[in-house]
Every structure is written in structure tokens, then in C-alpha cells.
């Protein structure tokens, strides 16, 4: 292994300046996570506006102009500025710790990618103050709706520019996620001993490197169409609106897995620790991550079944196949719990919630991957329900599991269990109340992205139930914020491993870890070095 060179000189160790100039992976990870959570609160507020407006038919709390900006920014922020970047933040924090390294491979690049992400996010939202308001063409910005003749405002340009910055930021951070675990592993940390979370991030990084450049391409073409008369997507000039969808979804579907693979890793770690058992099916979990990543590059046009312009059976078949490696993960989690000794601390509750919710997201995913069914439910509330079950009930629940699980490591403080359970209960009940009715609404014929609906459609009661659910989610989020405030006030020193039987190396250093992570590295002789260190009597049972 090559020698690790001295990290860049720090300009300041403490205070605001230290955070502004830092190249420390832990500080950058924290900045990423805090920023993404701030965007989550904003996007959550926008969800409240949507659900208030739709709680009953023919309401006028907001008009169509405002509503269309609100749902566009809600989707944009949740996808580009919350779920994916939270995964990046967690990975920035954890990868060097999990592989026994002092830093990321490219610390300055890492800092640069964070600041680009923040500036990109703010650029998207800055559209609010322009004349005509923020972008309102949806998070997909299909041409020709996003063309300058239809969406003439500067808000759409700022949206395109901002997201181009975040996509460049994602590419740079992916280079770090890929290179660091390959070249910076501590002695003894073979590739087949990497924690599953780190493996999932390697697969995620490969996906980003394949999928994000096409996104930047789609946006560049859109900008050229808007301001340089390129007419890539203008049928009047020999262009093709369907081409935009191809390029966008060539990014967009892998992006779905960029937003879930890291969290499959989170769930794997949490389930193992709270079941008091080694991860079941390590090899299968690693291979399935790459199976999902590989297949996800070939399914983009399942978002385009109703265009009549793609080879539906091909994309349908590959999409169905993704259920197989995803199923492998489920069965491995169940087998990890099987004959375990399970305790129900908040991270585990959120992991259980994740499994139950994501299962529904996955099953309905197979349904919408079938063109004959998609012909009915595409762009309906059924689809809205489906992807919220994967991204909200799935990724968001895993984000909360991660938050409760690694909070003691990052801040040296355990979040309160009582408030944590309350948070979980509100989230689980609220989430299912909010999104399960949407499956019925979609089948009944309610299209997505409508700012109002007629009373005679008969959708009022289910929409009201959904809005009550979102209110519960909002209260749950307030409980989380309260929990953080209360818990941070009473600091008690925590051991290296506050959960009692944690596996990976981040639990073999202090909470929080010192600068450059480890004062001394424990010997790495199995897949769970921290466990071996704290429980040498069971080390002989550790998978090698």
C-alpha cells in the first residue's frame, strides 16, 4: 500500500473558520448531513403546503402558480438535496473510519464537492425571488415544458444551473468513495472484510460515475435549447422531446439506486448489531449490490412505457429482474435476525419500519414495471405512493435509523430513547396513513401534480386521510428536533461502542473520534474487528 501523505494544512482548528476551510472528512460529513437535513425540513414544509391544499376538493389555499413551484421544489429538494446528499455525508464520515484510514483519498476535492453542493442547492431555491418565481416544471423538467417558450422565467435557468452544480459535486464525491476504500485500507482490512455499508458506497460511486455525467449532459442540452437555439428537443426544428426523457432517465433511474444502496448498507449494519449476530450472507449482500447497480443501468425506459416510443418488453424484463437482488437483501436481513437476540432501540425500530415499508415500495415497483399495469397507473397517485414507499418509507426511515445509530459516535451523545420511540411511532403510523391511500387514489383515477380536484371525483376522504398522515409526520419531525435539543444538553461520556456489540472499526475509536480517527488501530482479523476487540471470547466465531 502506498504511503499516506500528510493531509493539507488546516487554517484553523476551532470556530466558524475551521468549518469553512475544513478538509477533514468528519467535518465535511457533518456539514453534508446538516445541510441535507436543513433541506429536508424545507422540503417537508413544502409537503405540508401540498397536503393542506389537497386535504379537500377545490381549495384555494394556494393557486396553481404557487402549487406548481411548491411540488417542483419539494421533489427537487427531497431527491437532489436531501436523500442522496445525506448518504454522501454519512459515507464521508464513515468510510475512512470503517476502513481504518485517517482521511479520504482527496480531502480538498471532498471539501470542494460539499461547497458546490450547498451553492447548487441555494441556486435552485434562489429562483423564488426572481420574477415569475422558482422553477415549476416538476423535478423531471421534461422538454418541451421546460423550454424557454413555455417556462420563460429565470427560475427554470437557476434550477438547471443549480442542479448541474450538484451533479458535478456528486461526481467528485463519488471519486473519493471509490478510491478511498480501494487504496486507504488499514493493514488486515481486505476487500472481503469491508463493512457492507462501505461496499454499498462503492457500488453507489460506480453508479454516480455512470449516471451523473448524462444528467449534466441533459441539462447542458436544455440550456442550449433555451438560450442558444439548439432545438435538441424541439420537434419543429428536427429535435425530439423523447430524447430528453432518454437522457434524463438514463440518469434518473440509477439515481433511484444512488438514493437506496447506501441505506441498504445502513439497514444491514443496524440489523446485525441489534440482533447480536454477524451479518448473514455477506457475499450475497455484496454481489446483490453490484447486481442492482448493473441492472439499474438498463431499465431507464420503464419510466417511458406510455410514450409508445420504446421497446417496453426489454425494459420491463430487466426491471423485474431487479426484484431478485433486492429480494436477496431482504432474505439476508431476515436470516440475520433469525435466532438472534433482538432489542428494540430506536435505530432498530426504524430498520424494522424500513423493511415493512420498502417491501411495499418494492412489490408495487414490480407492478409498475409491467407495462399493462403502468398504462393505467403511470403519472397517477399510485405512482406517487409507490416511490414514496421506496424513498420516504425506505430511504427516509433508514436515514433516521442511521441518525440514531451513529449520533453517539458523531456527537458523543445518545439520543433519548423515549422521544425516539415516539418519533418512530408518529413516523410509521403517519407515513402509512399518508401514502397507503394514494394507491387507491391512483387506481381511482387521480393524476399526480394536480393543484386541485373536483368534489364529484370522490377523492376527498382518502386525500384527507393522507393529509392527516402528513400532519403526524410533521409532528414526528418536531419530536426529532426536540429530542436532539434535549439530548445535546445532557452530555455523559460514552464508551467507544455504546450499543454493546457493534462490528465495524468506527466503534473501535472514541466517541467522537479524534482528529485522524484512531490513536491506535486494533488488529483486523475478521469482518468485525471492533466486536473482536471488545468481546475477544467470541472472536473465534467472527466470519473471517
Amino acid at each position, binding site marked *: 500500500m502506498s504511503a499516506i501523505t500528510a493531509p493539507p494544512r488546516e487554517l484553523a482548528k476551532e470556530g466558524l473558520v475551521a468549518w469553512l476551510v475544513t478538509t477533514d472528512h468528519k467535518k465535511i460529513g457533518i456539514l453534508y448531513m446538516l445541510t441535507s437535513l436543513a433541506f429536508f425540513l424545507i422540503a417537508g414544509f413544502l409537503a405540508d403546503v401540498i397536503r393542506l391544499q389537497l386535504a379537500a376538493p377545490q381549495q384555494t389555499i394556494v393557486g*396553481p402558480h404557487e402549487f406548481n413551484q411548491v411540488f417542483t421544489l419539494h421533489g427537487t429538494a427531497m431527491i437532489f438535496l436531501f436523500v442522496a446528499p445525506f448518504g454522501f455525508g454519512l459515507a464521508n464520515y464513515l468510510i475512512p473510519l470503517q476502513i481504518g484510514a485517517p482521511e479520504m483519498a482527496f480531502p480538498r476535492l471532498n471539501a470542494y464537492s460539499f461547497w458546490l453542493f450547498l451553492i447548487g442547492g441555494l441556486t435552485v431555491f434562489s429562483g423564488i425571488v426572481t420574477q415569475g418565481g422558482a422553477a*415549476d416544471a416538476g423535478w423531471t423538467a*421534461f422538454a*418541451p*415544458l421546460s423550454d424557454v417558450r*413555455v417556462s420563460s422565467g429565470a427560475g427554470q435557468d437557476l434550477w438547471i444551473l443549480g442542479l448541474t452544480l450538484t451533479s458535478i459535486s456528486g461526481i467528485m464525491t463519488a471519486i473519493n468513495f471509490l478510491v478511498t476504500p480501494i487504496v486507504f485500507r488499514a493493514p488486515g482490512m481486505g476487500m472481503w472484510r469491508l463493512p457492507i455499508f462501505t461496499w454499498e458506497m462503492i457500488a453507489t460511486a460506480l453508479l454516480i460515475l455512470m449516471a451523473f455525467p448524462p444528467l449534466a449532459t441533459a441539462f447542458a442540452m436544455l440550456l442550449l435549447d433555451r438560450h442558444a437555439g439548439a432545438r435538441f428537443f424541439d*420537434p*419543429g426544428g428536427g429535435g425530439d*422531446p*423523447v430524447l430528453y426523457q432518454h437522457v434524463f432517465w438514463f440518469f434518473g433511474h440509477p439515481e433511484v439506486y444512488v438514493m437506496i444502496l447506501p441505506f441498504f448498507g445502513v439497514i444491514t449494519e443496524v440489523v446485525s448489531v441489534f*440482533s*447480536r*449476530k*454477524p451479518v448473514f*450472507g455477506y457475499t*450475497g449482500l455484496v454481489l446483490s449490490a453490484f447486481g442492482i447497480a448493473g441492472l439499474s443501468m438498463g431499465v431507464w425506459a420503464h419510466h417511458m412505457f*406510455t*410514450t*409508445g*416510443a420504446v421497446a417496453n*418488453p426489454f425494459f*420491463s424484463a430487466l426491471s*423485474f*429482474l431487479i426484484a*431478485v437482488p433486492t429480494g*436477496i437483501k*431482504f432474505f*439476508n436481513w431476515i*436470516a440475520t*435476525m*433469525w*435466532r438472534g*437476540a*433482538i432489542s*428494540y432501540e430506536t435505530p432498530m*425500530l426504524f430498520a*424494522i419500519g424500513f423493511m415493512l415499508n420498502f*417491501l411495499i415500495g418494492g*412489490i408495487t415497483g*414490480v*407492478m409498475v414495471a*409491467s407495462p*399493462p*399495469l403502468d*398504462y*393505467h397507473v*403511470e*403519472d397517477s397517485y399510485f405512482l406517487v405512493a409507490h416511490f414514496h414507499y421506496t424513498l420516504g418509507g425506505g430511504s427516509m426511515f433508514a436515514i433516521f435509523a442511521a441518525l440514531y445509530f451513529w449520533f453517539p459516535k458523531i456527537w458523543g451523545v445518545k439520543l433519548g430513547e423515549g422521544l425516539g420511540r415516539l418519533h*418512530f411511532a408518529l413516523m410509521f403510523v403517519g407515513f*402509512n396513513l399518508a401514502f*397507503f391511500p394514494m*394507491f387507491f387514489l391512483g387506481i381511482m*383515477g387521480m*393524476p399526480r*401534480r394536480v*393543484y386541485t380536484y373536483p368534489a364529484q371525483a370522490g377523492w376527498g376522504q382518502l386525500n384527507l386521510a393522507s393529509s392527516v398522515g402528513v400532519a403526524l409526520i410533521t409532528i414526528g419531525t418536531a419530536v426529532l428536533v426536540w429530542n436532539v435539543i434535549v439530548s445535546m444538553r445532557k452530555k455523559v461520556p460514552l464508551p467507544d461502542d455504546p450499543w454493546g*456489540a457493534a462490528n465495524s472499526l468506527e466503534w473501535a475509536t472514541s466517541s467522537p473520534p479524534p482528529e485522524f480517527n484512531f490513536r491506535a488501530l486494533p488488529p483486523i482479523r475478521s469482518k468485525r474487528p471492533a466486536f473482536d476487540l471488545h*468481546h475477544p471470547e467470541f472472536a473465534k*466465531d467472527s*466470519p473471517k
Partner: protein
Amino acid sequence: MRFAAHTTTLAATLTLALGGCSAIPSDTTQQAGQLHGVWVVFLSAAAVVYALVAGLIMWSVLAYRRRDPATVQAAKFHQNVPLELAWTVIPVLVVAGLFAVTYAGERHVDSVVTPPGETVQVVGFRWSWRFLYPREHIAIDGTSDRPPELVLPANRTTEIRLSSSDVIHAFWVPAFLFKRDAIPGIVNVFDYTPLKEGVYPGRCAEYCGTFHAHMSFTVRVVSPEAFARWARERGAPA
């Protein structure tokens, strides 16, 4: 609370599967009959898979609770190759079966009868629809305040030639379990064979800007005789 909510979800899924099959129409068009068949297969499979996997999850969670708080290692098994092969191969077979059902259903629905009994050109625009009956010389233009009505004869196949004059829209009749995108520069062709007379709401499903929510229409299916009468009254002389 968690378990209760979960049970509710499970019950709701089964309700969706069993009740859903009857809530999803099968007799509005000949094509909807085919689509309904695919829905029944998928909803049944969804209910079975959900009950199986969610059942395994909840069983593990509840049956293997930690009894001795000092436990740091429960059972130590962490692999079983035959088991892992089984839960790889069996899902492949399941999705292969689902794909066969999908393929057959789609082939039937996407096939277009030639020559059609009727032809209607449908053009989406912000924010309504234009229906053109070329043979009968009828043009119906809607506005977002006055949704247009598409009149179709029952028991005859009508070919829809769908396009758009501005952005992308989608022509969706929920009761027919079918939609198709209206894309500028492209003419999408599909057909309906309505079986049941009645009035069915239709909507734009592809977000198309400010008044997307008001881009609705109705479909009125009438007897072939009533259709001929309507066409004579509405039609302009050739």
C-alpha cells in the same frame, strides 16, 4: 402500536388485492378485459409475497427478542449456500412467470386492428383537447372550463391517433385502464373497443403546466345507431 399498524397495512393490502380486483373494471372495453386479467395476477402475487415476507420479518422480530440483556452474541450462523441459492433462483422463476403474463397482456393491448371501424384524431393542447373525426368531418374543441366530449360507438373498434400541439400531455381514461402520451411531433396510435355504454371521465395525466388539473374530458359510449345519428347531426357536409 407498531404491530397494530402493521396488521392494518397487511389487511389493507389484502383488501386492495381482493377488493381491488373487483374495483378495477373489466367490462368497459375489450382491452380493459385483458388488462384486468393482468391486474388480477399481479395483485394476487403482491398479496402473497407481501404476506410471506412481512410475516417472516415480523416473526423474526417478535420471536427472537433478547431475553438476556447481557447477550453479545446469539446464534453464530452467517451463511447457508443452498438456502441463498434457493432465494435467488425461486424469485427468478416468479418474475419470469410475471413477465410471461405481462408480455401476453401487452401484446394484446398494443395490437391495433386494421382497418379500424372509426378513426379519431386527438390533439392535446394547453389546457384542453381537440377531437377530430375525419370521416364524419366533425371537430370538437374543448377549453379548460368546458371539457370536450369524445363520443365512441360501442362494440366497434375506434382507432385513436394521438398527438400534441405544444408540450407533452397524456390521454387517460381511468375506466379503460389505459393512457398514452400525447407528444408533439409524434402520432401515437392505439384503439378502444368499448363494450359498455356510459359516460366515463378522462384526464390529462402528464403534467403540462399551470392548469394541468383542469385538462379533463369525458368519453360517452353510445350504441352504433346512436353514434351514426350523432355523427349525422354534428357532421358538416363533405
